[in-house]
């Protein structure tokens, strides 16, 4: 029985299909383990070898990785939610109710999207703290720290633009409070110090697409939330990860 299984496994990993996917053999030798990292698209983000100090969970608390994983969760659940959601004043709230009561696992999907988003904001902030407290922003990693700060801002903006989409009282007024701040921008805001622009052309108007929060705002936030900001985040995340490698891998004691 066991011999039969072994022969079956042996046959499978020598078929042309298997070998076309996995170029290297079973990763039980050092050579094959190195080849696994080199030949696998997802793994090649990793260096071949990692500092033992950087491997400790107590050092990184996996915060960067968890942030990225939550971003992937957000992407998957977000795409699924997009099938059921229409960004118009007429349908947005109705679609939320449909997600809750009519769509199979709709509520679970929305819950996951919401809690993962909160989790991501938290892990990104904690990741920044971890990097600060281990001095991992110091040369040659200055630039990557700045990319990380921009990624933190993008995370906050992603979360904030998503906050409006349910179109309930919570969403509407939280975003009213948030975007009202733009009115106070010096010079560029209609109510800020030294203002030169009217209510119809200031920063707040460009954020909302109208004087008050309206269907234009909903569409703007939807497009930003689903396309512009995620794309920007993916580009910056690629630079962020690439730079970690280029700057000598995860920080460690000299």
């Amino acid at each position: 029985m066991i011999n039969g299984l072994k022969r079956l496994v042996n046959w499978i990993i020598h078929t042309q299909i298997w070998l076309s996917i996995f170029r290297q053999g079973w990763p039980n030798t050092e050579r094959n383990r190195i080849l696994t990292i080199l030949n696998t698209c997802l793994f090649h983000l990793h260096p071949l070898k990692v500092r033992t100090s950087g491997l400790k969970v107590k050092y990184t608390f996996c915060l960067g990785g968890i942030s990225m994983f939550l971003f992937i969760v957000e992407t998957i659940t977000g795409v699924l939610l997009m099938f059921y959601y229409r960004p118009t004043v007429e349908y947005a709230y109705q679609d939320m109710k449909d997600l809750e009561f009519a769509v199979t696992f709709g509520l679970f999907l929305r819950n996951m999207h919401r809690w993962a988003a909160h989790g991501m904001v938290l892990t990104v902030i904690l990741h920044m703290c971890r990097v600060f407290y281990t001095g991992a922003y110091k040369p040659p990693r200055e630039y990557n720290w700045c990319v990380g700060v921009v990624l933190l801002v993008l995370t906050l903006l992603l979360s904030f633009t998503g906050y409006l989409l349910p179109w309930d009282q919570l969403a509407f007024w939280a975003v009213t409070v948030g975007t009202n701040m733009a009115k106070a921008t010096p010079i560029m805001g209609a109510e800020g110090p030294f203002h030169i622009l009217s209510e119809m052309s200031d920063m707040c108007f460009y954020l909302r697409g109208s004087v008050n929060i309206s269907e234009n705002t909903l569409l703007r936030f939807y497009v930003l939330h689903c396309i512009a900001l995620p794309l920007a985040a993916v580009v910056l995340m690629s630079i962020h990860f690439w730079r970690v490698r280029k700057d000598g891998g995860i920080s460690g004691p000299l």
Partner: protein
Amino acid sequence: MQERVDEVKPKEAVSEIPKKPDKLLAFPHLVFKEFIALMLVSLVLIIISMVLNAPLEEVATPTKTPNPAKAPWYFVGLQEMLVYFDPWIAGVMIPILIIVGLMAIPFVDKNIKGVGIYCFRERKFAFVIFTIGIVVWFGLIIFGCFFRGPSWLLYLPWESWDIHKPVISKGTYILPLYIGVPSVMGYYALGMWLPTLFARNFFRALSPAKYFVTMFFVLSMFGFIGKIPLRFIFDIKYVIHTPWFSI
């Protein structure tokens, strides 16, 4: 045979061989840990998503303003700052200064020690300043989330929002310009000057430009934090008040 060869080796040569390898293969050492972390996060996320429902209130009604209207929790800190500052500072200048200040950190921190370890002793100044910033940031968030009720008045978490509350700090006092402007300028000037006398090593370690930038952000941060007791204890609304802007 192998043991014999080892015995013959001189002691110095043996000590050169590191006992532990400094680096390990990413597969399996790193990849497996990542996999376990992701499984645990998935598990927690799935359980939370099953137990806790995402909030959904009534449909948005532009004519019905809730009291209080709170921002998402990560912006509540800024909303809380609105009590102490006008919106152009609380909503625009403070976030910009925080972002620029964070980005400036690696360029003004000349201390190359303490990389790759959690080490307080070798970088006390950076540690303390950053920690104060983070603690105040989260303190404001917690305060705004749990201790603020209708009209953004002070309500303890277990108090009902139905009871009437008096306004604690009305912001009755506005400092006249001849006190406000010199005191703010004096605060920055003294803040810049005193470390050159009492923290000479810190001053000398930095170039003038780096010293100026560091101290500007540090003093601004403490200035923003300092306005909170000014408002709460001394009931001061503005330190500087002009027809165009107020601080």
